[in-house]
C-alpha cells in the first residue's frame, strides 16, 4: 500500500519520551501532566493550559538501576519508567498523577518521588496518588469523582492556576472527543477483508495520541483519515489470519509489528494504550455535571482487570468476544507484561473462556517490555497463525 504521509513523523515522535510536540507545547507555556494508567480520566489532564503525556520509555536499554530499587520481580514497564526517570528522561513533566491501580505502578511512582527524579527546578511540581474504584457502582462513582476533584483538579488549580470549572472540563472533553473520533474512524479501516491500514500503522497513530499534545496532532490525523479514504489496499494481503490483541500495556509498536510480520493482522487493540475502549468518545449531556459523567463512563467502560465485581469480570470477556466479532477476528492473542499480576489472572481466565465458551483460538503469552528482536515470540505467533489456518481448512473441509 502507498505510504501514509505522516507515518514517519508519528514514528519519529515515538522514538523519544520528550518528543518534539511535547517540547513545542511546553515552549508555548502549557503544563505537561504526566500519568501512567488508563484509569486516570484523560480529559481532566487536558484542560486549557495543560496537556497529558502517558509515560513510556522508548529505546530502553539497561534497567539495572531501577531493578536495584524495584527488584527483578516487578514488571519491566514499571522498571523501565523508573530507569528513565532516574536518567532524567521525564523532566519535561510538570506534575504526575497516578492511581493506586496496581502495586507495581504505585511503587514505581513512589520511587520516582522519593528519589527526587522529577521536578527538581520546579517548586510547583506535584505527585498525586489517587484511589480508584474497584467496582462499577454508585459508590465507586462517588469515590472516583471525589478523587478526581482532590487529586487532579484541585492540585492543578492550586499549583498552576488552571481553570477546572465545568465549562473548562466540557471544552476539554470536546477536544478529547475529536481525537477519539478521528482515531476510531481511522480504526474502522481495519475492518473488512482488505484493510487499508495495517495494525502497526494504526498502533503508531493511536499511541502518539497518548504521548503527545492532542491539539498538535489533530490536523495530521484529519489528513491521515482523508488519505485512508482513498488508499488502495494491497491486492494480495500478506496476512494469513486476523487477531485481536488483548492485555496489559503495549507502548512498543515493535510488538505489533512483530505479530504482523509473523502473519497475523492485528485488527483490534484491546490493551492499555490501545484504542478500545481508550479512544471511545465521552458523551456528555447537559443535565449533570461533566466530571460525574466522565467518571461514570470511565468506570463503566473500563476493562482493567482490577474491576472486581462479577458483572465487570464477565463483561471483560464478553467485550473481547464482541470485538472479535465486530472486527472479524480469527483468533485472539492474550498478552501480558512479564510479572504483571492483574493480567496474569485475567489472561488465564480470559484465554480459557474465550476458547472454551466462545470458541476462539487463543494464544496466551507473556513478554518483556522491549520485544523487537524476540525470536521466541515470533515463533509462537507463527505457530498460532498456522493453527488458525489449519482450523479454517478443517472447518471448510467439514462444511464442504
Amino acid at each position: 500500500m502507498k505510504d501514509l504521509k505522516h507515518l514517519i513523523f508519528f514514528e519519529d515522535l515515538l522514538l523519544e519520551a520528550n518528543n518534539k510536540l511535547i517540547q513545542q507545547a511546553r515552549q508555548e507555556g502549557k503544563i505537561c501532566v504526566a500519568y501512567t494508567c488508563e484509569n486516570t480520566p484523560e480529559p481532566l489532564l487536558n484542560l486549557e493550559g495543560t496537556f497529558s503525556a502517558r509515560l513510556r520509555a522508548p529505546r530502553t536499554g539497561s534497567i539495572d538501576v531501577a531493578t536495584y530499587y524495584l527488584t527483578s520481580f516487578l514488571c519491566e514497564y514499571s522498571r523501565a519508567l523508573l530507569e528513565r526517570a532516574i536518567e532524567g528522561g521525564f523532566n519535561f513533566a510538570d506534575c504526575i498523577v497516578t492511581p493506586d491501580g496496581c502495586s507495581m505502578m504505585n511503587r514505581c511512582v513512589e520511587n520516582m518521588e522519593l528519589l527526587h527524579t522529577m521536578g527538581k527546578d520546579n517548586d510547583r511540581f506535584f505527585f498525586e496518588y489517587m484511589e480508584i474504584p474497584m467496582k462499577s457502582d454508585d459508590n465507586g462513582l462517588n469515590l472516583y469523582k471525589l478523587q478526581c476533584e482532590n487529586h487532579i483538579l484541585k492540585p492543578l488549580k492550586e499549583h498552576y492556576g488552571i481553570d477546572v470549572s465545568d465549562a473548562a472540563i466540557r471544552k476539554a472533553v470536546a477536544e478529547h472527543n475529536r481525537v477519539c473520533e478521528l482515531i476510531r474512524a481511522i480504526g474502522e479501516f481495519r475492518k473488512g477483508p482488505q484493510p487499508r491500514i495495517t495494525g502497526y500503522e494504526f498502533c503508531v497513530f493511536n499511541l502518539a495520541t497518548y504521548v503527545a499534545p492532542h491539539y498538535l496532532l489533530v490536523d495530521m490525523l484529519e489528513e491521515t483519515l482523508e488519505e485512508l479514504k482513498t488508499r488502495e489496499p494491497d491486492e494480495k494481503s500478506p496476512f494469513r489470519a486476523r487477531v485481536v490483541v488483548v492485555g496489559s500495556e503495549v507502548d512498543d509498536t515493535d510488538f505489533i509489528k512483530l505479530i504482523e510480520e509473523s502473519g497475523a493482522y492485528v485488527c483490534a487493540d484491546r490493551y492499555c494504550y490501545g484504542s478500545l475502549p481508550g479512544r471511545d468518545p465521552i458523551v456528555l449531556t447537559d443535565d449533570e455535571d461533566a466530571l460525574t459523567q466522565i467518571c461514570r463512563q470511565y468506570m463503566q467502560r473500563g476493562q482493567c482487570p482490577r474491576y472486581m465485581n462479577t458483572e465487570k469480570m464477565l463483561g471483560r470477556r464478553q467485550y473481547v468476544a464482541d470485538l472479535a466479532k465486530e472486527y472479524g477476528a480469527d483468533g485472539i492473542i492474550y498478552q501480558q507484561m512479564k510479572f504483571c499480576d492483574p493480567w496474569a489472572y485475567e489472561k488465564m481466565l480470559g484465554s480459557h473462556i474465550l476458547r472454551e465458551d466462545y470458541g476462539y483460538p487463543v494464544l496466551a503469552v507473556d513478554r518483556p517490555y522491549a520485544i523487537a528482536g524476540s525470536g521466541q515470540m515470533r515463533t509462537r505467533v507463527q505457530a498460532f497463525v498456522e493453527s488458525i489456518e489449519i482450523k479454517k481448512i478443517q472447518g471448510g473441509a467439514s462444511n464442504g
Partner: protein
Amino acid sequence: MSKPLKIVLKILGILFLLFTGTFIIYFFNLDMKLTSMIEPFLLKHYDNIPRNRHL
C-alpha cells in the same frame, strides 16, 4: 483387702498404665512417626479421587 480398695487400686493401676503409655508416645514422638507413615498412602488416595477440575 476390701473390695472398694481393690477397685481403687485397679483404677489407679489402669491410669498409671495409660499415663505411661501415652507419655511414651508423647516423648518419643510416636504419634507423629505413625501419622507421617500414613501420609503417602493418603496422598495416593487423593490422587485417585475423580475431580471436576476446571476454572
